[in-house]
């Protein structure tokens, strides 16, 4: 039980730090916080406007009270108000989060899947030709920045051969429900997902391979081999069960890796997702929107990592049966 509590407490503290950071930053930096929170320069405002924003943002009240209002805005799910876009931040984010997830989730599944199978194979037959080749190839791929992968793919597949479209998530003529919408969407999703997967596979693979390598030296593997079990059986029924925990933790980490990566990818492929929203917010100095995005993405990552932690504890036979025995 103590383990559950620890991981949950850490997650809460992490959340709290992001909250406090979000709250303090505009108030701590040089300059009038009103400029940061409304997104307009204070010199450009009339006195009446200034008053209006000050009371709308509760800046004329005491700090603890301001913090309370801030917490309220989080609890009721609005996350503040973007004066630049004249909309509630959470609505803006909800509008865009779908596209980001459409890119991120397939990439997470693909990269962890490929990493697992490939790593299992190569870690099991260590120092075979295939292992050495694929390991060195992926180490090289690991040093390639993700935007370079995206640019190369665009140049090769969009400009030279015109196989894939390179902007947006669907063609202009397509609307949901029109015949061929799904195929069109898949065609558009292919390159961003491929880029993100290529960017994430090497680190997943290397992690898996090293874990499997260690596991393959254990005595139970030797014993299983002596009994004449097939390699496939040993890999998937014996080793996989023993490395399940690091693998699940890795999946949790992949989510945060891919969400971060998709920020870059979305900008290159002009996908209207959260990454695009964030860069828009940065260029227009829309601070409330930035803080909202930071809050939401931290939320996604913390939840995914804590979920993987809990899952790890749940499937641990020591925990499962330990409680019955005790």
């Amino acid at each position: 039980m103590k383990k559950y509590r620890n991981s949950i407490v850490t997650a809460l503290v992490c959340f709290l730090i992001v909250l406090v950071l979000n709250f303090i930053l505009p108030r701590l930096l040089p300059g009038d916080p009103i400029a940061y929170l409304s997104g307009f320069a204070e010199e450009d405002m009339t006195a009446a406007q200034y008053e209006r924003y000050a009371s709308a943002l509760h800046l004329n009240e005491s700090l603890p009270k301001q913090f309370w209002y801030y917490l309220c805005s989080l609890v009721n799910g609005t996350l503040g108000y973007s004066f630049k876009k004249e909309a509630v931040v959470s609505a803006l984010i909800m509008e865009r989060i779908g596209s980001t997830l459409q890119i991120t989730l397939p990439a997470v599944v693909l990269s962890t899947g490929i990493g697992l199978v490939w790593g299992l194979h190569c870690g099991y037959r260590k120092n075979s030709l295939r292992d050495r080749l694929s390991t060195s190839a992926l180490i090289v791929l690991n040093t390639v920045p993700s935007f370079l992968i995206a640019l190369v793919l665009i140049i090769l597949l969009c400009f030279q051969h015109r196989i894939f479209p390179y902007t947006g998530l669907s063609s202009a003529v397509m609307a949901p429900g029109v015949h061929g919408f799904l195929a069109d969407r898949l065609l558009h999703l292919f390159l961003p997902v491929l880029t993100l997967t290529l960017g994430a596979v090497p680190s997943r693979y290397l992690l898996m391979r090293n874990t499997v390598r260690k596991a393959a030296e254990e005595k139970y593997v030797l014993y299983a081999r002596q009994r004449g079990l097939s390699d496939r059986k040993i890999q998937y029924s014996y080793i996989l069960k023993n490395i399940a925990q690091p693998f699940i933790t890795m999946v949790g980490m992949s989510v945060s890796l891919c969400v971060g990566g998709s920020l870059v990818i979305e900008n290159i492929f002009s996908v209207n997702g959260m990454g695009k929203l964030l860069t828009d917010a940065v260029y227009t100095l829309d601070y409330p929107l930035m803080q909202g995005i930071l809050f939401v993405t931290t939320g996604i990552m913390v939840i995914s990592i804590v979920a993987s932690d809990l899952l790890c504890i749940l499937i641990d036979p020591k925990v499962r049966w330990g409680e019955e025995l005790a």
Partner: protein
Amino acid sequence: MLGLLLLLLFLAAALQPDWFTSYGLKDMARPWLKPSAEHVLGTNSLGYDIYTEIVYGTRDTLFIGVMSSVLTLLLGAAIGALSTRKGLLGGLFNGLINVFVLLPRLITLIVLSAFLGTSRWHLIFLIAAFSWVGTARNVRAQVIHLNSQPFVENCIIQGYSRFHIVLRHILPNLYEVLISRFLLGINSCIMMESTLSFLGFGDLYHPTWGTMINFAYKRGAFMRQAYPYLLMPGVCIMGLSLSFYFISLYFEARREAIQN
């Protein structure tokens, strides 16, 4: 060996850029020239030679990478070592490590650099402030391992102060962990910096390779088919990362040889 050669090449480009190119950074030619014998990679939207820009960008890229990696190492080693202390202090730093593991690095960096404004030193401090977790965890594991070794126990029995033990006995034994974290840290810092610069948060007065790609992308190198302008800075990042990786491989091989 290959890593060392590559690194030397990049270092030379960083220290003496005029050895490699006959053009100055701001020498203008016609814009968007195709690659030719005079301009190896062509020219950009203002007519600057792209190859020259890359050579001059080496210094800034390396500078940010190395500086933030040094800072990362110091922070990570200090916090990692402190977190092994017993009592409240150790618990506090250990908690700090656990919390920072969860933070989304790239997004926090983007938001913070938007708030703080972009300059070289801001970038270096920000990158270091969010990259030390890996080092700290490694150091922590290693220090815990060392603390249970007989020679540390021996020192305690002989009555040396904790300070002395950490500085004279534990730190030298961390050497291998630290050096490999340092070399790979440079890679991840350069990667982080170029991603941020590519998104437009770089220091415009000290253009790095990431900033170059950002310019190339924004000023329509796609339309003009100036592919070298888009790709070469990225390839350089790759080469630099590989050179540090090879060097760290060398240290690893040496360690294994000693152990056997």
